[in-house]
């Protein structure tokens, strides 16, 4: 088979699996698990084959015109370069891991068939985005991901949090997608084609008329999808979905789609220095804010969600300094270790029966209950904090190195200010990352107090996947030298200055947190807290749903807990209160968008109920009144009828006589 055929099969197989799963889900439950795992696994293998055949060389392009549109043609096009090949491998790997993990995690879930089919559909859409060489086809995958995310976040739709979160995720991403769509149209009109290669060719020859406008419009969609400030607020709430969904969608793939999109069209963005500056500022605010917020969260998954936002900020920062190699490099390693973190967090939630760090910090011996999760999560957290020699170190240093490269004025066409902004905030975020990684590790695994409950061993599917993902988290950095060919040929090896600075700051953050934890942990015994799931013997999904639903009643908030033993509270000081709620951005949105929309809706409702309905009711009431009057005349009394008849006759006769006599 040619490489093109293989590449076409990569998105197609999960799609067919999803369709078959949806069709057979009820009638043949035995086929659901193979239909979920095998197509995804096959897609992964094929993606690896495609990547090997492509080999970082010339990009593979194939296109067939879908239908004549009369103006800008829409084509089914493949465009596989090194980025696409590697990202597809990552997507296939994470999706396969998640599907395997889900067979254990949602073991007894009644809605598993539709869940697995949606995950497969999602995987297919993401692979379509990755391989597509046509912007319209890419947009199709982009929107399918959005709707799959909506369904999967709302998987526990019995809980109000999940319902609200799914709607919020959908609406906020749509808020970005509308400008995104307009931007794509504007780009296609300027370039005369939806084909990415043609667009890039037009950009290279300076054919874009409105580069800044197009870049900013596209950036809005990217900010929505990749959860960048100010459209990031849906991602922490999306943690109300099942943990595998968080791992797949909200860590490794969908949120990476925005970054990947910019990486594909980076020349378009680079054509406008204003857009690059905006991206840099966006990335800086995102990184710092998410780091602070992550330090204040009580829900394990929300900590990871803010961490995801921060790491995506790194990637956006790398793109802002014009280095897509570093961005996609970090995307790859981050996808691996963040998926691992989420999946391990799922194991912890299942074992502890709670998603609250305040509760796990009062449990002794949780790490002995889940040794696999403990060790793999340690690896992943070290990678997250960018401690050498774990994968995160190499990729983050690539980003910081690129920023330093720009800041010191070695790059042309890219504002130095962007470089400085990304560099400084990147280093500060490294400090924060070290701090919240350490806090998470300490609170989750080093609790003191009552013995952790024993809920039995986790399913093999869940633990095996953790180790599978631990390998790239541990060793991806070794590929640094080999991968530079795939990414525009730029050297990705870390530079000394940024390495020392970044690692040092991360270590400082971790150590300070450790000190604070030492100081505050004595308080934990005095303030007993915690609530565990009511059905610990159930499968992990049920435990998680109950933990999510009980967090707000037990601790007063879905995100924070009034825990004095939290080192984050000591470190953040007065800032903790604001960081716990995401710096009140939701309140701002409520003021800016929700309330005006609701006020408008109530106005419309008022107009509909009181004004429009008045006419409608009036239109009905007048004939009804007339009908009542006429009905009153129908007395059944013949004499009345005859009286009316004769009276009318007299009137007519008199009138006739008057007319006849000319009076």
């Amino acid at each position, binding site marked *: 088979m040619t490489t093109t055929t293989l590449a076409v099969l990569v998105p197609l197989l999960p799609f067919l699996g999803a369709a078959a799963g949806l069709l057979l889900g009820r009638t043949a439950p035995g086929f659901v698990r193979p239909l979920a795992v095998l197509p995804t696994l096959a897609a992964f293998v094929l993606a690896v084959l495609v990547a090997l055949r492509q080999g970082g060389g010339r990009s593979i392009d194939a296109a067939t015109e879908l239908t004549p549109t009369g103006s800008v043609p829409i084509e089914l096009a493949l465009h596989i370069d090194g980025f696409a090949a590697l990202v597809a491998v990552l997507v296939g790997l994470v999706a396969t891991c998640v599907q395997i993990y889900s067979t254990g995690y949602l073991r007894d879930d009644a809605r598993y068939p539709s869940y697995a089919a949606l995950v497969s559909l999602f995987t297919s859409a993401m692979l379509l985005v990755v391989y597509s060489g046509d912007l319209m086809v890419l947009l199709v995958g982009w929107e399918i991901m959005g709707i799959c995310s909506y369904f999967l976040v709302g998987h526990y739709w019995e809980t109000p949090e999940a319902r609200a979160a799914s709607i919020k995720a959908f609406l906020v991403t749509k808020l970005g997608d509308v400008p995104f769509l307009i931007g794509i149209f504007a780009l296609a009109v300027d370039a005369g084609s939806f084909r990415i290669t043609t667009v890039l060719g037009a950009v290279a020859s300076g054919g874009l008329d409105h580069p800044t406008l197009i870049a900013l419009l596209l950036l809005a969609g990217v900010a929505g999808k990749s959860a960048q400030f100010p459209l990031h607020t849906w991602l922490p709430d999306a943690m109300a979905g099942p943990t595998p969904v968080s791992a797949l969608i909200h860590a490794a793939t969908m949120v990476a789609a925005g970054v990947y999109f910019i990486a594909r069209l980076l020349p378009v963005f680079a054509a406008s220095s204003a857009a690059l500056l905006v991206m840099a500022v966006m990335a800086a605010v995102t990184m710092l804010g998410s780091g602070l917020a992550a330090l204040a969260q009580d829900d394990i998954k929300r900590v990871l969600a803010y961490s995801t936002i921060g790491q995506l900020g790194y990637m956006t920062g790398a793109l802002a300094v014009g280095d897509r190699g570093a961005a996609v490099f970090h995307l790859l390693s981050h996808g691996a270790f963040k998926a691992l973190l989420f999946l391990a967090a799922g194991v912890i939630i299942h074992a502890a029966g709670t998603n609250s760090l305040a509760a796990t910090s009062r449990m002794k011996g949780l790490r002995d209950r889940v040794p696999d999760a403990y060790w793999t999560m340690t690896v992943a957290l070290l990678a997250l904090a960018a401690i050498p020699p774990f994968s995160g170190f190499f990729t983050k240093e690539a980003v910081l190195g690129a920023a330093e490269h720009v800041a010191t004025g070695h790059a042309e066409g890219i504002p130095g200010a962007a470089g400085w902004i990304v560099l400084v905030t990147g280093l500060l975020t490294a400090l924060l990352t070290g701090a919240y990684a350490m806090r998470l590790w300490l609170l989750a695994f080093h609790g003191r107090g009552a013995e952790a409950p024993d809920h039995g061993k986790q399913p093999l599917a869940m633990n095996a996947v953790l180790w599978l993902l631990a390998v790239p988290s541990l060793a991806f950095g070794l590929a640094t030298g080999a991968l530079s060919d795939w990414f525009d040929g730029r050297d990705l090896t870390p530079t000394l200055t940024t390495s020392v600075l970044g690692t040092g700051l991360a270590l400082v953050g971790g150590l300070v947190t450790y000190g604070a934890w030492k100081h505050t942990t004595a308080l934990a015994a005095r303030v007993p807290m915690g609530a565990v799931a009511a059905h610990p013997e159930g499968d992990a999904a049920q435990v998680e749903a109950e933990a999510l639903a009980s967090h707000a009643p037990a601790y007063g908030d879905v995100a924070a807990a009034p825990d004095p033993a939290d080192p984050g509270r000591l470190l953040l000081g007065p800032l903790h209160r604001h960081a716990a709620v995401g710096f009140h951005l939701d309140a701002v949105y409520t003021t800016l968008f929700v309330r005006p929309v609701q006020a408008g809706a109530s106005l419309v409702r008022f107009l509909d109920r009181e004004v429009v309905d008045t006419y409608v009711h009036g239109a009905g009431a007048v004939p009804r009144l007339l009908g009542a009057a006429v009905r009153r005349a129908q007395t059944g*009394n013949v004499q009345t009828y005859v009286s009316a008849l*004769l*009276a009318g006759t*007299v009137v007519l*006769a*008199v009138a006739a*006589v008057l007319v006849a006599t000319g009076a």
Partner: protein
Amino acid sequence: MSLTAAAATVAHTATTAAGATVAHTATTAAGATTTAADAHGFLSPTGVEIAFLLVGLVTLGAAIVTVTTRQLVHAALWLVVALGGLAVEYLLLTAEFIAWVQVLIYVGSVVVLLLFGLMLTRAPIGRSPDADSGNRWAALTVAIASAAALVWVVVDAFRTTWIDLDGAAAGSTEVTGKALFQNWVLPFEALSVLLLAALVGAIVLSRKAKATPATASTPSGLSVSAARSAKAANTTPANETPATETAPNEMPATETPDSGTADNGTPAGATADPDKGGAL
């Protein structure tokens, strides 16, 4: 001819009683031309006119009493007066055959028939306060309005028209008979068919309740008993026979289709039929 002579003498005596000379001049002038308005005056009544007016007032008064009295039987009797007054008016108009027909048929049979009807429907003897329906004021309005319109139109149209009553009687039996059996013989025969049809119809209507006893026994029995109870609730004075006595009489009558039950004294059917025959 003796009837015509009698009518003429009645007219003449009326004329002489009213005042002779004026009437004679008027009638002779009218003989010249009927449309010569100047020969007549509104204030030049002949004796016939005065008699016509007086009898007309009586007739109208009797008619008004007929439609307003609260005693139902009295209404029928006042109707006799009104119809009789009309017969006199016919005589004054020299239509004597019609006058006698009026007396024979209306006064003789129609009013009797109406009285029968009143009795058979157990109309109350004496004053009944609810003789008029609630429609009275509307009826009065319509009646007065139509009266005003009709009188206005009629007076406006015929104020210069006179009838010449001199000479041979216009409606003597001979004249009427000739006209009827020469020019109107075909409608006359058709009329006899109509009367036959009315006869049959009246019989059928009267016997309808008993015509199909086998199929409609239970519903008709129910309806009769319902009617009985409704009538009992009406607090009719029930002068001769209480309702409880006739009810058991009717129930077997509806159940057995035998013809021998007719002599059980059912109030409506058996006795009404001969009356219809007599009326026609």
